[in-house]
């Protein structure tokens, strides 16, 4: 099989990124997929699937797409808010049973391609970098136990039980952070199967919502000591969004009352698929269905790449939640191969809080 359409494969990664981070499916993106194995060859997630830990921290070569997605709301020693993002994606081009060994590295196999994104948001500025690698040669990969996810010299690594280290750097920015994850694993949807459409499509999805973070973030040569809290999503699937599902809006919010809320919307308009998870302060987890969530953009910001909804109203009437989510001033486009918006947010309304917002499908 010729493998010269790697760009398209990467476009495909983007199309499915984070079960979202999804542009309007571009014909060229799907055209490129013709070069990889058909979707049916990959294992399809279903409500019968279960999340197995720690194994599921590792890669899923039988599945087509997966990612490790960390966002964090930090604060410098001076009390200024700062946001960081680290994400690593894997795109399978050929499925491989998990028990089977990958081809030898000397053959430079291309069963999978990897992409990593790193970003820092501070004082209205946004720094972003991306890196690419082919899988199974050691340049990029993931391991469940002890946890290690890496691409080049960027990596998330468990240095001892319950303590992780995250290192990444780009032009004009870098961070070296210590992460202490909480032991509360949130399984979204139906015990981890998170539906993305009415026809049963979905992904396996779990999160760590409260990761204590400390360390150093350097921007433009100035180091900042930071502390704060992160949210890590772990998700894998084999299905791309349906071609009629345009855009992806995702929110991960930590509220001051101790509750945590994740909501997303796939597509636009009344028919958009909505779903979410509410974790109460007492730790009880409630899946939210389309009818339970109201999500509306309230104000837009003009940017070079398109108008971005920066103020949102999120309502969950059954849980008496009425929140207004705001992105701070600035331009938070991750201007990579396929641009998307990733910004820290503040929350007001029936509860205050903070979190992250990821929007795709708004490029002009």
């Amino acid at each position, binding site marked *: 099989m010729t*493998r*010269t*359409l*790697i760009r398209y494969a990467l476009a495909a990664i983007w199309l499915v990124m984070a079960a979202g981070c999804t542009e309007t499916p571009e014909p060229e993106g799907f055209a490129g997929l013709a070069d990889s194995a058909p979707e049916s060859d990959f294992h399809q997630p279903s409500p019968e699937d279960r999340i197995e830990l720690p194994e599921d921290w590792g890669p899923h070569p039988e599945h087509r797409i997966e990612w490790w997605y960390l966002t964090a709301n930090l604060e410098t020693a001076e009390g200024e808010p700062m946001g960081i993002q680290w994400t690593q994606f894997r795109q399978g081009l050929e499925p491989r049973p998990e028990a089977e060994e990958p081809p030898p590295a000397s053959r*430079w196999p291309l069963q999978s391609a990897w992409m990593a994104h790193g970003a820092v948001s501070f004082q209205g500025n946004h720094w972003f*970098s991306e890196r*690419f*690698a082919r899988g199974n040669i*050691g340049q990029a990969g993931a391991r469940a136990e002890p946890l290690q996810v890496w691409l*080049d010299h960027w990596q998330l690594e468990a240095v001892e039980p319950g303590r992780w280290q995250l290192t990444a750097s780009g032009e004009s920015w870098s961070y070296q952070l210590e992460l202490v994850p909480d032991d509360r694993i949130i399984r979204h949807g139906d015990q981890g199967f998170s539906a993305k459409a009415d026809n049963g499509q979905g992904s396996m999805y779990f999160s760590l919502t409260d990761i204590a973070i400390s360390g150093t973030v350097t921007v433009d040569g100035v180091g900042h000591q930071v502390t704060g809290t992160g949210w890590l999503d772990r998700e894998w699937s084999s299905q791309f969004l349906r071609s009629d599902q345009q855009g992806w809006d995702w929110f991960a919010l930590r509220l001051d009352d101790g509750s945590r809320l994740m909501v997303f919307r796939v597509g636009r308009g009344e028919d958009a698929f909505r779903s979410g998870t509410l974790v109460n302060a007492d730790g009880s987890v409630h899946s939210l269905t389309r009818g339970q969530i109201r999500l509306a953009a309230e104000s837009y910001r003009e940017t070079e790449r398109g108008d971005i909804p920066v103020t949102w109203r999120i309502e969950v009437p059954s849980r008496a939640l009425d929140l207004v989510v705001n992105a701070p001033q600035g331009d938070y486009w991750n201007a990579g191969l396929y641009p998307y918006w990733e910004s820290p947010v503040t929350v007001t309304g029936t509860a205050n809080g903070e979190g992250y917002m990821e929007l795709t499908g708004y490029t002009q």
Partner: protein
Amino acid sequence: MILRAVLSHYRRHPLQLLALWLILTLATALWSGVWSLTGQARDSMTAGDSQLSGRQQVVRSDGAPVTVADFASLRRHGLCVFPWLQVATDDARGQVVGIDPLAMACSRGAATGSGFSMDGQPFVDIAEAAERAASGHSATLRLYVTKGDASLPEGWQRQGDPGGLSTGELSDSFLLNLDALGLLVVLVSALLIRSVYTLGLAQRRESLGLLERYGVTRRRLRLHLLLELMVLAALGVVPGYLLGQGLADVLAGGFGAALGNLFETDLLATGESLTGFLVTLVMMILVVLWCGLDLLRGNAGRTRSKAHPVMGAVLILAGMVLVVPAQSLVTVFLGTGLVLAGAGLMTPALLGWCLSPSPHMPPLKLWRRRELGVLAGRLALPLVALQLAAGTVIAVHALVSTFEGTFHEWLDQRLAGDVFVEVPEGKPLAPAATWLESQDGVAQWHPVLRGAAGLGMNGENRQVDLMATDTTSTLIRQWSLLASVSQPWQALADGDVLVNEQLARRQDLKPGSQLTLVIADKERVVEVVGVYADYGRPAGEVLVDTRHLPDGFVSGFRSLTIDLADGSGGVSRSDLVAGLEAAWQVGSLQVRDNETIHRLATRIFDQTFALTRSISYLTLLLAGVALLMTGWVVLRSRAWYFGLLSAWGLTHRQRRQTITMLTAEFMVAIWVAALPVGIALTWVLVDRINPVAFGWTLPMAIYPGYWLELLLLFGLAAVVVGWLASSGRTEAPVQAPRLDGGQER
């Protein structure tokens, strides 16, 4: 009120307004196009050069071959390395290069971002190349890093790329000449604008004089005219800028597509830049000021002085005196400017003299000659502007063609043979020589030894580079020499020397010159039997035959150039490398595949040349429009006289033929006048600027085929102008006694 009166001219002649706006817009388009294209050509050349020479190999200090694990390890260390897997194909002489598109961003010095797509021979995905390697084809994996990247981890070191090829001064020279031509294009277009504007102004003299008689002061009138010009310029600059960018994009896009498989298209990225726009704006302001200066001084359309031809001759002479012996670029540019100015002053008078009628001519021919004389006088400025524009176009074409030819010749010379092998340090040549001689599949080979030599000149000893080779090799004898004695290769084999052009110029060496050569402390007097072109670097070099090297000579670098036999009798690259490795008893060799490098270099630089050619197309476009415009304006102003032809009994058709013949003769006259300017400019570019800047010349070449293409274009313009001038109603003669050079005969 006054403004309305001033502008009323354009109400009566809206096409003139359109024409003036058009020339301003097109000139702006040319500037922004030239700015963009020269920028792209520069980027293209620089990027291409860095692709060829700007990388280094990363090798293990223990000498072991690198592996995919090494690649991953270096990347995990944060080093931006990219893999390059060369694998022999079934055709023993060919090979493919496997690259990892996901890692190729590093080849452009970018640590992040995606790489570029490469599709097709010789570049394939590295997995495909590895598959071939696994099926038994010989393969070499190299890891490259761009120069200046981070420090290496322990156990690793950088090494020059045997596949590297620096175009060095050849690139620099091309870019310098490109800049000089860009400047000339800008000046010529400014001259075109001024000529069109001045011509239009002369036609308005009557109405402006009327306003003066009504009491409008001359100063106020001029200020209004200046304002009018500024408004027109402002209206022309934005669409002109955008048009230029669009044209540059179209031209660059076409060429970029040809290389789309090889390099990222951002190599050709244009995009609107603020700097480009500001430069264009400043240019327009300067040209408006130039036109305005004449207005304010009140000498627009001044009569051509009879002293102009004399002044022209003096300027040409002074320019020549400066250019010929010039030792600095400033002097060359100054002298060239004087020559061009002198040509501008002389040309109208010279043409007038050449076209002066003879009383024995048939009446219609006599009439045409007289009209041509009038036109040469009236259109002095447009004529000179067009002459210089056409001359520039000829020079651009010659420059690009010359560089292209030279570049390909230089590549052929530098990349002679199929394979280039570095002799491992400390290993003698003999075992490899014995093995190579025993191989039927090796067509020919020769060693190249590089070192230093002393040159005894005028009692002092100078260090120069020394190149020693087997000068009986046909690969060497294919070199074309710039100057030589009658049997240079035989004389070289007998112990004499060749010198490179840089050394010949610096030391004033010619074929037949004697010099004292000191190699390994042994001195001998030799004769220079030839001079060869050596564009890549500034150093002086002497070439000798290896058989005449003294015993104590220690070479700094040794290599073998090997040409494989064609067809089935040829030895494969992998067998060749294996044989040499066995002969020298080493684990690996540094091997360069000349064909791949040649193909890569050619594809890169063809793009640069194509971009540069497009500058000449843009200049030609502007010159053509100016030609049509000025010709049409002036001939329309003489329509009344042309009407008299009917009174002589000529039919409408005969009248049109006569006028077309007249315009054709006028265009041919401009074309003829442009030829010496074009040749002179080409000569200055290749024969004066290069020696002064770099110490070597380029071969001077002329391209009569292209001149004929230009003549065809001029002929086409003549037909269009002739047709326009002979159609429509005839008007009363324009009173333009002070029209630039204007006079009635």
